[in-house]
């Protein structure tokens, strides 16, 4: 009998455990809430949104409204954004903004869970590319066109190319927070100490390899951080005149696998010569503040966005210069993209109020005096113009860099399919195998095409 009871008990346990494992699909949103500071107020905001619903969002300024706002970023962005929120709350005493912030990893997992629960925030930081495309294709984002027309969100004077970047299928679903570009960040002090000339914007891939190798030979330190294929291979194919995905996002946008073989071979050779570190080193970097170039262990790093240069230089404590990425066709490869977008989910109860806040964020000089270039260069030319002289040297450098890229770049690709993140993660897996010496560049390129096509095919 004892045995039978024990058996029953264990079966019960198996079921409960299984419940935990499959239930975690639903519960994960609860988990991820733990890493931000928003949990305690969720109930309140739901109640207040329910009770004040009849009043709508009219001018009744006595009415207390709680807006939920979500973004991802580094600690410094969290601090600066919270400061901006405080400023807005002081000017609008009837508005309370409840911030939900995390690092980038985990952000879209959390948002997906909220979307499934019809519980998206009122103001949502969106990512350009496959992410916003996916949310727009599910009809989850409010059309912001009418708000711009009515002047609720003032985009007077913003260039059309920037506004277009917030459109999906002709509908404006996001207001760019600022503009951004990939950049080669270079520690000038490190290169000069080693007696190596700092490269100019017309450098080639060969120049990059030579400088990195020379630095390694002279100092014993890494010439450059490892190139990771996500953004880098996207740039590399563009620089060669192709695109990563074809026009309708159903396959790869380049026909000759030799492009990818060349890319893999170049990186692999540099890793083998220890001019670049391998994945064993890279995988242990804990955030931007811990990057090799910040710690003085590498002279160059091609994988940063221009809005990250400020944080890099501040934490490194030595001058960091930005160059466009190498390659003869770098004007074809380089592109400007919105650093992020502000979106209003359709599920929001307070769309007008949310639009008002986005307008504040876009059109207020004080906002950018607090946040600098952390969310990119302001999209309003007059704000950018007023802001520039007040900025620190490093932020001015970023301004100049973006100005240069504006004149020497091609439009960003907007055709990333929803499955792009899975395709890119396959590319990363293959890249890792090659760098660990488990696969040849040729096999890697063939396999990537097979896997990408099987993912995109269905």
């Amino acid at each position, binding site marked *: 009998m004892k045995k039978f009871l024990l058996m029953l008990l264990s079966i019960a346990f*198996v079921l409960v455990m299984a419940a935990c494992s499959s239930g975690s699909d639903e519960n994960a949103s609860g988990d991820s809430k733990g890493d931000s500071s928003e949990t305690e107020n969720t109930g309140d905001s739901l109640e207040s949104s329910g009770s004040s619903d009849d009043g709508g969002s009219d001018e009744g300024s006595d009415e207390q409204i709680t807006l939920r706002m979500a973004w991802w970023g580094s600690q410094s962005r969290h601090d600066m954004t919270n400061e901006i929120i405080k400023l807005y709350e002081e000017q609008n005493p009837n508005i309370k903004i409840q911030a939900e912030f995390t690092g980038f990893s985990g952000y879209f997992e959390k948002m997906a869970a909220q979307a*499934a629960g019809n519980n998206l925030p009122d103001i949502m930081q969106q990512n350009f590319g496959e992410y916003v495309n996916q949310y727009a294709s599910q009809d989850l984002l409010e059309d912001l066109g009418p708000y711009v027309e009515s002047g609720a969100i003032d985009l007077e004077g913003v260039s059309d190319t920037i506004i277009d970047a917030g459109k999906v299928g002709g509908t404006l679903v996001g207001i760019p927070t600022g503009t951004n570009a990939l950049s080669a960040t270079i520690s000038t002090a490190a290169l000069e100490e080693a007696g190596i000339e700092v490269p100019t914007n017309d450098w080639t891939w060969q120049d990059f390899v030579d400088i990195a190798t020379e630095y390694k030979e002279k100092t014993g330190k890494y010439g450059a951080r490892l190139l990771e294929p996500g953004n880098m291979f996207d740039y590399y194919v563009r620089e060669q005149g192709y695109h990563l995905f074809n026009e309708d996002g159903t396959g790869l946008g380049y026909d000759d696998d030799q492009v990818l073989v060349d890319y893999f071979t170049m990186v692999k050779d540099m890793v083998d010569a220890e001019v670049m570190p391998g994945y064993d*080193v890279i995988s242990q970097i804990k955030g931007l503040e811990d990057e090799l170039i910040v710690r003085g262990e590498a002279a160059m790093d091609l994988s940063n966005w221009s809005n990250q240069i400020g944080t890099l230089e501040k934490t490194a404590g030595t001058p960091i210069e930005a160059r466009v990425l190498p390659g003869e066709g770098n004007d074809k490869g380089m592109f400007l993209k919105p650093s992020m977008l502000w979106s209003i989910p359709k599920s929001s109860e307070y769309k007008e109020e949310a639009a008002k806040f986005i307008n504040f964020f876009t059109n207020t000089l004080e906002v950018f005096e607090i946040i600098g270039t952390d969310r990119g260069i302001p999209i309003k030319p007059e704000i950018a113009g007023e802001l520039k002289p007040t900025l620190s040297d490093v932020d001015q450098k970023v301004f100049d860099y973006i100005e240069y890229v504006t004149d020497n770049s091609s439009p960003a690709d907007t055709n990333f399919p929803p499955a792009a993140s899975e395709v890119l993660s396959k590319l990363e897996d293959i890249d890792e195998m090659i760098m660990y010496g488990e696969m040849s560049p040729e096999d890697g390129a063939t396999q990537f095409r097979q896997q990408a096509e099987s993912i995109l095919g269905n």
Partner: protein
Amino acid sequence: MGQETTNLETNIQNEKQVPISPKPNKRPKRKRVGADIDNRMGYLFISPFIIGTVILTLFPILYSLYLSFTDFNLIGTPEWAGLDNYKKMFTGGDMLFEKSLGVTFFYAGIGVPARLVFALLVAMALNKVIEAAGVYRTLLYLPSIVGGSIGVSIMWRQLFGTDGALNSLLTMMGLPTHSWLGDPDTAIWTLIVLYGWQFGSSMLIFLAGLRNIPKTFYEASSVDGARPIQQFFKITLPMLTPVILFNTVMQTIQGFMAFTPSFIITNGGPMNSTLLYILYMYQNAFEYFKMGYGSALAWFMLLIIALFTALIFKSSEYWVHYEDN
């Protein structure tokens, strides 16, 4: 099974031999009215639990079963896909599925026995301690309390990192250092060591089992000249087998379901060498937004765990000894 039936028969015989109440067929009738009211009150009292279980456990379980037959990207509506998700798993279309399954079997296959052996050894040592036993017990149990947490996983990452404590120690002793987490051959072992280290709960159960073994067995056997090692294999181990069974089942389930360490310490890398099954399920559901496929993976894991639990129980007939037989 043979044992069980004889067991039941003797029970029945016992009852026949010793009739406790004179008229057993009248008892249920008299009690029924009161029992109904009792039951109603009882159900009322347990209703919070039942409602909670149905809404928070049963519904998600059944919903995920439904989702496993659909194509669902989490932010849209699920679309019926029939057996497509399961077909994809078993027709070799997903190499990472096989890889993660392999990693998980390796992890559980080494981690679970290691933890059990370790727990038993510590429990036996602790069983001998008489002074301040509570302090030792608490200290040894501590890793298990904090074990599943994010904090310990982050600490583990620091410990085994390139500039971590372990490498510093090796440098101090003049030994070569190693990138423990960066090497595909060693990364999984850091997770297994972590699993083994959190032996507290099985250790406590072993300890309770050890305390239940009558001292007279040992005394009698030592009079007959048995050495400690003989005592261990002839007395301790056989007497503990029910507890070992329980621990094995529980730890196997836990081992298959491990998630936090590989998520936090290595995120499945390097080269997916630490991609535990549950982590891969999570990636599908929340990173690639393939909730349907993720649910199918979850249900397959349920089958694996159920199968292993059944196998362990089946095998227990041959190695578990109960005192009452």
